[in-house]
């Protein structure tokens, strides 16, 4: 079994951890006193507006900025040709062929998706910048357009990046166990023609943007921005801009939602930096909503073709084989990491021991993809859940029983999967039972009959899902063995300042997850003081010295990486405080305890030093000590114990923790319109130790809402010319309050044995709602022709088609039995 170090459980819960402590962040946010990037202003700053490509694929024949530059109040422009002189292409994660992509901050010579930034214009006001952009003359020569990744590798397909010799960015075969033997042993082989996971993203309400200043004397840029993975942005930008990382100061405070979509803003930030230097003024860039929809980080669209599932007569699942085709969009900004990240959850929650998946990723004339809540695992989990429900439907197994039969069992935890990932803890049957009870599954047939009496089709769906968190970045080496990334880390500092203030800094970039609150809860319990006296600085600042290469907020890891760093630093500070008190009282350290906001002698509570005295001594009152008093300024780097996986076998542990979510829903379909209404919903979460149950529940709720939207309404739809048909909130319908079903939540805790606090990351939710709504629709359609749900996105017209032609989807499923 893959070796994992078990962290000793040194943490003792006090009065803060485990409580729904009201959030520290709320005070400023409910009063409009948050500071989002767009709230930061500088004298004489210039507003940036992008001239964007009106074509999905075209060569740039000429660019003329002269008319724009002549307009009073226009400060300057930047073109792709200048960018190509001033910078090198961004580092590519991919090995060849994808590694040959040349990605610059602005289009150079060619545009590859509609909305791609071509020229940046800076002016005195945002309205003027927008107007001046209209006067930039760009001549294009349109090229044939590729919008379907399935056609990307066909002979004669339009090629986006000539240097790559085609549109393939990555391909690899992932096989574990003995797949042929599993199929030989099977009593049934279920074949599924094609499954499609749709393109959407979580559309944070705040779009991208930055206020960027350049200090000419030091050559250092400061970016007040909402990038959610500053460590990654700096790694991308430094070499491209030919400067050291320390020249790139990234500052965030409040971020208006991220969901992964704000990880890959490094091209736009680079443009802002170049212009701040060129124009000798601060640059303000705020993305418009349509800009965001056209160009910012769509989620991965994926097909699964030619799937075959090996099933025993009793319903035991032995293995599957499939071909995944992933659409990366026009550039590889975080890709092809999606080509490995799915394998954290290759078999979902099930004991599939024999798996073969051929992964192919292609580039198309659509917006670049990059992480979106549930990144790449959500697609795989949707696949495993679809497979289960299609197998159940086809072979007439109960969807609940086939899950129970094949779930990894609680007594098998920690469980090593077929590809060497280690599921740390969990109790899937218990979570499923809770979800079924909350949704009232016992009465489903009564409800089905009642709905039928109203002319409605009613169905129950289950979505079992995982939230794998705390990446081992060495998994990147499974798609590109030359990469030099591995492990993970996060940093925190905790110090006791001169008047006794406890000050915490983090490397993370929270976007609503309540890091200030949960970090304070952990520190308060370690220092044995009130949570109110812990001051956690808001946001991220590269100049705080509390960050490392993987710092940021992404991929469900704060409760492990961030809080373990906080715990480590707070433990160091507690030791410092005890040591200083022992020096003052001239007693052994063992005689000192921290309690009630004091360091005191255990047996003599009168001999007590308040935090203020402890803070003052090293900082301002340190004469007369025979030895140096401790600094009271502690920095800790948390590093989970990871190994580099076996690159040949693609085998090893890729993430530290696996939180469970089981979702269940009841849907009603109007057979006359195809409209699906989610009428009841339940979500059960097990993320190990919960630092703040209310915050955890809030994350479950948010993930549920995103999933419902993606399942029914949200889609980035392109026409054959590469025009995005859903570029705003009119056409891209996100759930409104009246769309939301009644929700019941449940939770229990299976502490992680691998993390210092027993916590697991849990922010993404694994797309459980998409899985369960697809299952619910399929269940509801059983009484109306028995169509099979083969798409993750099921708007009324797709459901209507399934009602009208149920045979079309049924014909894509075949069973071979012996």
């Amino acid at each position, binding site marked *: 079994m893959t070796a994992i170090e078990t962290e000793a459980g040194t943490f003792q819960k006090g009065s803060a951890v485990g409580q729904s402590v009201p959030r520290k962040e709320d005070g400023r946010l409910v*009063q409009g006193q948050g500071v989002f990037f767009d709230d930061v202003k500088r004298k004489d700053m210039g507003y940036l507006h992008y001239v964007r490509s009106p074509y999905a694929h075209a060569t740039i024949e000429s660019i003329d900025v002269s008319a724009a530059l002549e307009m009073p109040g226009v400060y300057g422009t930047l073109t792709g040709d200048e960018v190509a002189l001033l910078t090198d292409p961004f580092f590519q994660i991919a090995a060849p062929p994808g590694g040959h992509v040349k990605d610059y901050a602005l289009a150079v010579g060619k545009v590859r998706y509609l909305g791609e930034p071509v020229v940046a214009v800076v002016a005195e006001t945002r309205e003027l910048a927008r107007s001046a952009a209209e006067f930039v003359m760009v001549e294009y020569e349109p090229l044939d357009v590729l919008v379907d990744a399935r056609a990307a590798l066909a002979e004669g397909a339009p090629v986006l990046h000539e240097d790559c010799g085609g549109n393939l960015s990555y391909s690899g075969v992932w096989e574990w166990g003995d797949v042929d033997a599993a199929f030989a042993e099977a009593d049934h082989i279920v074949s599924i023609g094609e499954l499609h996971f749709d393109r959407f993203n979580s559309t944070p*309400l705040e779009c991208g943007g930055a206020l960027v200043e350049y200090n000419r004397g030091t050559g250092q840029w400061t970016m007040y921005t909402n990038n959610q993975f500053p460590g990654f942005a700096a790694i991308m930008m430094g070499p491209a801009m030919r400067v050291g990382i320390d020249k790139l100061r990234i500052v965030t405070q409040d971020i208006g939602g991220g969901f992964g979509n704000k990880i890959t803003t490094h091209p736009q930030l680079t443009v802002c930096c170049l212009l701040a230097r060129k124009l000798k003024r601060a640059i303000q860039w705020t993305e418009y*909503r349509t800009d965001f929809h056209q160009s910012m980080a769509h989620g991965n669209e994926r097909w699964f073709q030619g799937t075959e599932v090996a099933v025993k007569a009793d319903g035991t699942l032995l293995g599957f084989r499939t071909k995944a085709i992933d659409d990366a969009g026009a550039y590889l900004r975080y890709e092809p990491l999606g080509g490995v990240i799915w394998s954290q959850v290759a078999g979902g929650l099930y004991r599939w021991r024999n798996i073969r998946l051929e992964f192919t990723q292609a580039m198309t004339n659509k917006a670049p993809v990059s992480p979106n809540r549930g990144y790449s695992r959500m697609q795989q989990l949707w696949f495993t859940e679809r497979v289960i429900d299609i197998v159940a439907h086809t072979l007439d197994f109960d969807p609940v029983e086939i899950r129970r039969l094949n779930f990894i069992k609680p007594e098998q935890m920690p469980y090593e999967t077929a590809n060497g990932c280690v599921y740390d803890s969990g109790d899937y049957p218990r979570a499923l039972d809770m979800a079924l009870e909350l949704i009232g599954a016992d009465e489903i047939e009564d409800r089905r009959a009642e709905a039928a009496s109203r002319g409605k089709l009613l169905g129950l769906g289950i979505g079992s899902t995982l939230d794998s968190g705390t990446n081992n970045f060495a998994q990147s080496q499974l798609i590109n063995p030359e990469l030099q990334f591995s492990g993970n880390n996060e940093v925190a500092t905790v110090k006791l300042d001169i008047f006794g203030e406890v000050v915490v800094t983090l490397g993370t970039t929270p976007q609503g997850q309540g890091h200030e609150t949960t970090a304070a809860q952990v520190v308060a319990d370690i220092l044995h003081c009130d949570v109110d006296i812990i001051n956690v600085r808001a946001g991220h600042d590269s100049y705080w010295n509390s960050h490392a290469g993987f710092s940021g907020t992404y991929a469900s890891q704060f409760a492990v990486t961030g809080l373990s760093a906080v715990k480590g630093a707070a433990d160091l500070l507690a030791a410092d405080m005890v040591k200083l008190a022992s020096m003052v009282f001239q007693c052994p350290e063992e005689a000192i305890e921290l309690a009630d906001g004091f360091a005191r002698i255990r047996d003599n509570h009168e001999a007590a030093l308040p935090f203020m005295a402890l803070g003052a001594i090293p900082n301002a009152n340190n004469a007369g000590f025979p030895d140096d008093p401790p600094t009271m300024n502690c920095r800790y780097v948390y590093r989970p114990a990871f190994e580099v996986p076996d690159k040949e076998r693609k085998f090893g542990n890729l993430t530290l923790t696996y939180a469970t979510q089981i979702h269940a829903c009841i849907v009603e379909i109007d057979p006359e319109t195809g409209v699906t209404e989610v009428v009841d919903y339940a979500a059960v979460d097990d993320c190990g130790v919960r630092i703040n149950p209310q915050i955890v529940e809030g994350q479950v709720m948010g993930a549920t809402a995103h999933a419902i939207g993606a399942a029914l309404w949200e889609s980035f739809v392109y026409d054959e010319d590469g025009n995005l048909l859903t570029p705003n909130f009119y056409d891209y319908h996100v759930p409104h309050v009246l769309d939301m079903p009644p929700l019941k939540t449940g939770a229990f805790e299976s502490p992680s044995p691998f993390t210092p606090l027993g916590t697991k990351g849990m922010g993404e939710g694994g797309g459980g709602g998409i899985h369960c709504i697809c299952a619910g629709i399929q269940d509801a359609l059983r009484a109306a022709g028995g169509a099979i749900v083969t798409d993750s996105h099921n708007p009324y017209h797709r459901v209507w088609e399934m009602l009208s032609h149920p045979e079309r989807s049924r014909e894509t499923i075949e069973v071979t039995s012996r």
Partner: protein
Amino acid sequence: MSTTTSTTRTISVVINGTSYERDVPASLLLVHLLRDDLDLTGTHIGCDTGSCGACTVVLGGEAIKSCCMLAVQADGTSITTVEGLASDDGALTPLQQSFHDHHALQCGYCTPGMLMSATALLEQNPHPDEHEVKVALQGNICRCTGYWNIVEAVVAVGEGGAS
């Protein structure tokens, strides 16, 4: 086309009890007057199409989207923004307190708009039921919470208890 910023007009408007007189371009949106000229940055922008409600303020007792109104159209009106809710000593309104107690916000970007829509509702209907709250908030998008806790927070205020 060309910019129309040369066409300006003097407006006076009362915001959170303070009178302002400003020369504004005819094309200036009310939300930009608030954010850029008066530095009342609590009012946010999320969509540019009047869809999301992050820019909601209360004007003459009605919740309106300040991205859908020109600054000149606000001449002579009285406006409350999120900055005008809590009292000068920092005491939160029952609605703000209820948002805090019910975890009705995560990133906080939609929150000012939600608070202003709900404030207008509660002034007109002090005891709204769940459906009435949902109808009043249907023009406000939140991408973090799924709305459940927001609805609960507003209903709780109407029932007379913030928690």
